[in-house]
């Protein structure tokens, strides 16, 4: 049933002001009840009604503002001398002391408490009550318990700036692992507002409130690495292609930077310290298609240059852009480069001609290779993380990887092996999850999958002890996590089992292609 009301207005009157006036109500429609409709309904009997006689309460959550606390100490310089005594006056103080010493009460008290003290001192020398007595037993108990793999967050370090940048690279301090250097930069081209800070920070893992040290580069750092031989030196690759190095004893400004003319033309995505007698050699890779070698003592120009041209002609225009580098100190003549195009290029440092430098390529990925690392215990096998998968390769088979994960729903952005367990590796994804994989346990799914944050995780680095790891997110939040003992203790026969598994996969793939 349609109810329509029509009013007319002459066209010549359009645009005139509205003159409102009152008029009595007009009845337009009167709809009477239709009793036949009642037949569609029945009376509900009984009715269930809930009634509660209780106080109404509501729940509220409040998050207080970040409380900045600082530790301060007070230095107590002099004891509580009596008012009439000048503490500077040596004679007066000595006289006072002598007076106390002659006091009978003092003498009696001291004799009493000294006796007790002597007893305890001698006791300390007799037995060490804090000695570990049942060390062996503890170990046995550990092996038997089958704990669920787990990881917990220990600390969260947030980018202190208003405009958050992505934590693109993490590096653990080489001695003791108490500090974490994080490089911050904005990965999206020209998306960052003009006043975005360029600073990167070194955090003390015990203090998430304030970074321990600030590094001030000329252009935001995309990658940052501690020198494994000298823990005061760090090298960073920046967004504008320059390389800079810092000495933490000398302050926030870089000690030296590479000259713009000889640096990369694109952001430097990875920089690695090489093994050398001087401990000052590094090499860097960038999407401009070059891999450059530097000696940090002389940053005016690189010591060597390699163009990643797969046709081996050294042509920069057809070069592949590099996004990751790999170097193992146990194999110093070889290194690998992960490219934007999805190829892994294996190179030989010692080759005489540039053409011979590029040895071979491994194909299989569909997108830039964000992470590339050899297995610490089985260096012939390496892990690549790109597109939606992580793959494990055997050096000898170039056409395909020997093991790979399923295709995930989100891109994988970084990954690394566990330094202590050859079968464990970690990956982080664009949806903010961290996955821990154990190739002996399950190949299709991660052994442990955790949602660390809501934004993408861009970087991950595991400490040398394999127990702690840091992962950096798109909003500059670095999360320090501790994984359960089971995931970082070498299991019985693990090396042999991994070796066997890798061998089987290797033979399987090889047989497909040969």
């Amino acid at each position, binding site marked *: 049933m349609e109810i329509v009301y029509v009013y007319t207005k002459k066209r010549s009157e359009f645009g005139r002001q509205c003159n409102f006036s009152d008029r009595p109500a007009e009845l337009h429609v009167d709809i009477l009840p239709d009793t036949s409709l009642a037949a569609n309904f029945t009376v509900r009997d009984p009715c269930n009604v809930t009634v509660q006689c209780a106080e109404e309460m509501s729940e509220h959550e409040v998050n207080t503002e970040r409380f900045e606390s600082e530790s301060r100490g007070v*230095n*107590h*310089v*002099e*004891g*509580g*001398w*009596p008012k009439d005594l000048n503490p500077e006056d040596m004679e007066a103080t000595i006289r*006072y*002391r002598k007076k*106390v*010493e*002659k006091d*009978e*009460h*003092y*003498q*009696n*008290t*001291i*004799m*009493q*408490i*000294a*006796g*007790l*003290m*002597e007893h*305890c*001192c*001698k006791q*300390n*020398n007799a037995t*060490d009550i*804090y000695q570990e007595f049942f060390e062996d037993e503890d170990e046995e108990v550990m092996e038997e318990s089958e704990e669920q793999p787990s990881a917990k967050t220990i600390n969260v370090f947030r980018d202190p700036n208003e405009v958050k940048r992505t934590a693109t690279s993490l590096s653990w301090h080489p001695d003791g692992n108490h500090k974490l250097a994080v490089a911050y930069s904005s990965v999206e081209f020209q998306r960052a507002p003009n006043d975005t800070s360029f600073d990167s920070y070194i955090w003390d893992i015990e203090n998430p409130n304030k970074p321990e040290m600030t590094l001030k580069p000329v252009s935001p750092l995309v990658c940052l690495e501690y020198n494994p031989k000298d823990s005061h030196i760090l090298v960073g690759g920046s967004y504008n292609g320059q390389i800079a190095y810092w000495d933490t004893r000398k302050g926030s400004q870089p000690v030296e930077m590479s000259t713009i003319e000889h640096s990369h033309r694109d952001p430097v995505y990875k920089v690695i310290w090489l093994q050398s007698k001087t401990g000052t050699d590094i090499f860097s890779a960038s999407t401009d298609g070059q891999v450059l070698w530097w000696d940090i003592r002389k940053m005016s120009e690189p010591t060597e240059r390699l163009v990643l041209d797969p046709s081996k002609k050294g042509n920069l225009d057809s070069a592949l852009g590099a996004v990751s580098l790999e170097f193992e100190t146990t194999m110093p003549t070889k290194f690998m480069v992960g490219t934007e195009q999805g190829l892994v290029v294996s190179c030989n440092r010692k080759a005489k001609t540039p053409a011979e430098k590029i040895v071979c390529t491994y194909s299989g990925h569909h997108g830039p290779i964000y992470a590339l690392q050899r297995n610490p215990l089985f260096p012939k096998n390496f892990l690549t993380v790109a597109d939606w998968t992580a793959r494990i390769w055997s050096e000898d088979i170039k056409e395909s990887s020997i093991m790979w994960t399923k295709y995930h729903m989100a891109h994988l952005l970084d990954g690394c092996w566990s330094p202590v367990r050859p079968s464990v590796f970690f990956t982080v994804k664009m949806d903010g999850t961290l996955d821990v994989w154990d190739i002996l346990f399950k190949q299709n799914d991660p052994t442990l999958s955790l949602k660390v944050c809501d934004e993408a995780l861009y970087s991950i680095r595991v400490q040398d002890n394999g127990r702690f790891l840091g992962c950096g997110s798109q909003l500059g939040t670095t999360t320090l996590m501790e994984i359960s003992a089971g995931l970082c203790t070498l299991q019985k026969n693990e090396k042999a089992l991994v070796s066997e598994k890798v061998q089987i996969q290797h033979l399987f793939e090889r047989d497909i292609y040969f």
Partner: protein
Amino acid sequence: STLTPFAEVEDTLKRIQGINGVIGTIVVNAEGIPIKTTLDNSTTVQYAGLLHQLTMKARSTVRDIDPQNDLTFLRIRSKKHEIMVSTDKEYLLIVIQNPAE
């Protein structure tokens, strides 16, 4: 013994200082004035101030639990050494010892 009380005290403190592993001995009064010490002044004053406060806290803890009770000895074991405080209402005897391994 035939020694005067003064000498006895001296003797006892010397003996404690001579025990294997003892790094320093300090006697402090309730005001925080070091009466006798084998360490340098700034270290002594630091130990005296800090341990006096800790001892007061420990004593009040013991007495809160049981008013009849009182603190007699406090031992702080750290990674590097052990700090022992023997207390009385008015004086503190502090000994830092590195126990023989």
